[in-house]
């Protein structure tokens, strides 16, 4: 009995090991590529440039990263200090566990939270305004003719050119950063939703009509929207990319004292170029991660029915 279990266990572990090794073998070219770039970077930084200000080495950046992970700070957003509720603190105290009600987190995490707050304010408002606007424009020809010229005139203005008005209209708070990200993100969403609605196949609309789906509202809800979903999803992906690009600039003009973009400038003023590089890399990784997450969700869940379509 025990022998049998052991045998199964050993078989399983062999399986896991072989899976890991096959993964390494499959991705070996990619892994070697990344590793050699890191080695090359280290060599150039240490032996050729040897000036931390011009090019921090890989190890400098790693230490800088560890430092912002180790240092902690109070979590406060928009002037509000976030604390553990008094009730919870009291209960824990009764149980003999003393906790500080103040929430302290690594600086890095706080910067991350700030940046994500800015980003989501912008992106969510772009979704809430952009998708319905694109839908209505795509479905009703008159509204398209009214709104389209306005959009075409405003769209080419770079989002960063809106910074002065963002400050005057909204003030120096996270919503001003959100506004810039909104400006960057809303147009790809409107345009892709619009195109998706314009290219709804006539046969689907007619089939739905014959099956008793007759009002505009029903046709939009049950035919046009699902049919346009791939296009809308592509628009959201583009919008997230553009919004992420706007993030650094949006945090640059002092909307809050934290944030990945803000910290790039902050450390530049302090001439800590290794920290600048850490935040740059973090922005890149996070952007990649958000994009992958979205793609996984959209392709895996929302657009299951499109598996057969070659894009």
């Amino acid at each position, binding site marked *: 009995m025990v022998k049998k279990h052991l045998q199964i266990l050993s078989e399983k572990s062999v399986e896991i090991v072989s899976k890991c090794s096959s993964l390494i073998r499959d991705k070996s070219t990619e892994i070697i590529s990344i590793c050699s770039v890191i080695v090359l970077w280290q060599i150039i930084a240490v032996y050729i440039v040897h000036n931390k200000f011009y090019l921090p080495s890989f190890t400098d950046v790693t230490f800088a990263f560890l430092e912002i992970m180790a240092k902690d700070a109070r979590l406060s957003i928009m002037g509000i200090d976030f604390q553990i509720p008094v009730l919870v603190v009291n209960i824990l105290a009764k149980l003999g566990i003393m906790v500080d009600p103040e929430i302290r987190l690594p600086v890095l995490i706080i910067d991350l939270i700030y940046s994500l707050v800015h980003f989501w304010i912008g992106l969510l408002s772009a979704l809430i305004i952009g998708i319905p606007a694109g839908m209505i424009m795509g479905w009703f020809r008159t509204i398209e003719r009214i709104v389209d010229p306005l959009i075409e005139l405003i769209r080419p203005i770079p989002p960063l050119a809106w910074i002065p008005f963002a400050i005057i209209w909204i003030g120096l708070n996270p919503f001003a950063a959100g506004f810039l990200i909104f400006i960057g993100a809303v147009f790809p969403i409107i345009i892709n939703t619009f195109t998706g609605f314009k290219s709804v196949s006539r*046969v689907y609309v007619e089939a739905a009509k014959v099956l008793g789906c007759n009002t505009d509202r029903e046709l939009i809800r049950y035919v046009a929207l699902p049919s346009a979903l791939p296009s809308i999803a592509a628009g959201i992906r583009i919008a997230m990319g553009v919004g992420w690009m706007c993030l650094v600039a949006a945090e640059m003009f002092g909307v809050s004292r934290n944030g990945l973009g803000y910290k790039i400038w902050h450390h530049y003023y302090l001439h800590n170029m290794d920290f600048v590089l850490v935040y740059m890399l973090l922005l890149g990784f996070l952007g990649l991660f958000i994009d992958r997450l979205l793609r996984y969700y959209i392709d895996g869940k929302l657009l299951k029915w499109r598996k057969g379509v070659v894009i």
Partner: protein
Amino acid sequence: MGRVKVNNVSRRFIKDEESSTLALDNVNLEVEDKEFVCFIGPSGCGKTTLLRIISGLDKPDVGEVYLDDNKIDSPGPDRGMVFQEYSLFPWKSVIDNILFGPTMRGVKKKNALVEAEKYLELVGLQQFRNSYPYELSGGMKQRVAIARALANEPSVLLMDEPFGALDAQTRNILQQELLGIWQKKHITILFVTHSVDEAVFLADKIVLMSARPGKIKEIINVDLPRPRERTSLEVNVLRDRILKSLLKEQTK
């Protein structure tokens, strides 16, 4: 009941100020309940337009269409339609496609599901219940389209060259199945086709149409008993007659 009456229907398509085509010119037709009628004619003779007018997707310029004495002016669930193009909603699974009509009419999901399963069985695709349209072959897609149209329990089924895009074998099988369904469900079927074979095999009545302007040239009653032999003498004689008539129409 599924009695269709077409009264003096004319339809003109206007391209610009100068050019326009008269697709249908004063068409009159009466179809009895539970009749299987095929429309045949040279391409561009307005047979699809006539079907679309009966479905309510298109409106006649002159004249009117009645279904059991009710005037038709918009699409409705009492007239099911199967299109030539694959019209299944690609974002819905097979069963959800069939459920679409009943849920739109406000039938409770549970009752609708029971009905939908029945129609799925009728077209013999139970094992593809949860598949998406991209996983189905052309013939299966049209079978589901028929089930979806029937799930609304229409009194008239309108079919616009539904088997036009299928290969010959699949087409023969589907014709056979359609006759089986028609005999089981007792509904009126109006079937547009460009294939004389198909018309002769299926129809009680063949409506021969003439090209521009679209007019009814001749109505042929097919009194051959079913099941019909595709290669029997009577079928061939009839086919020959229709083909000659069509040829005259095309060279006119």
